């Protein structure tokens, strides 16, 4: 089973990289962009019987730093 973990900076945590990319998009003439936040996507291929709790633990213990990041779990195939 494929699971995607989307990790992004929590709201309120300044994302300088996102801000720089925002400026670059404006420089290219795209004026309608309100905000840019950059995160990372981690794809896990796990055993089909892996439960939500186990995946959540993986996120909390390693994949995301919950001091600054939040995460979302998406099951791609079941």
């Amino acid at each position: 089973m494929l699971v995607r973990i989307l990790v992004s900076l929590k709201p309120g945590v300044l994302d300088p990289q996102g801000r720089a990319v925002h400026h670059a998009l404006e420089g290219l003439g795209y004026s309608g962009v309100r905000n840019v936040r950059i995160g990372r996507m981690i794809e896990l291929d796990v055993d089909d019987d892996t439960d939500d709790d186990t995946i959540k633990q993986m996120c909390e213990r390693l994949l995301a730093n919950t001091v600054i990041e939040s995460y979302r779990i998406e099951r791609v195939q079941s």
Partner: protein
Amino acid sequence: MTFRAAVITFPGSNCDRDMAEALRIVSGQEPLRIWHGDADLPDGLDFIALPGGFSYGDYLRSGAMAANSPIMRAIVSAADRGVPVFGVCNGFQVLTEAGLLPGALMRNARQNFICRDVELTVTNNQSLFTARYDAEQLISIPVAHHDGNYFADDETLDKLEGEGRVAFRYSEDYNGSQRQIAGVLNAAGNVLGMMPHPERAIEQAHGGTDGRALFESLIGELVSA
């Protein structure tokens, strides 16, 4: 006097030798060198140092992989027993990732790698690590980092300040750190993490010796204790 210090080396550490050299110069004794894959620390350690560098190539997040190295379990348990633990630069990142210190080190606010001397204020000169500095002393220490932007929520920052756990502050905003925090202590005062490199300011040939008092504080306090 005996001073039994250990310097941990992770794959990608590159300031471990500088740290060992600083400890040797100031204490007169050769520190032990410990590989991250070891599960146990030698008995009777007086001090553990986590050096700077780019452990595991900064994969995932700076310090995140090293924080899960086999040796870290032993270091967390040593820190809980009161053994002084000191993390510099990547070592600081590892200590936050391992949960021994609060907060996180994010990419510098201006996205740049900063390699220069910075001016710091010694905000707490009552700790094991800073007792040989004067209160509010200004010191010059080199930094070399990309991810030194200290972040914690306001509640944590208020608590750190209220409990005197901000050890060093940048005199100006170099990297975007909240409240210009350059180094923090844990609640018990035996764990210090800082982004600047005091081990690179030990001898005149380094361009300055302001880092020396940190090692003298530590060694002095431990030996007289």
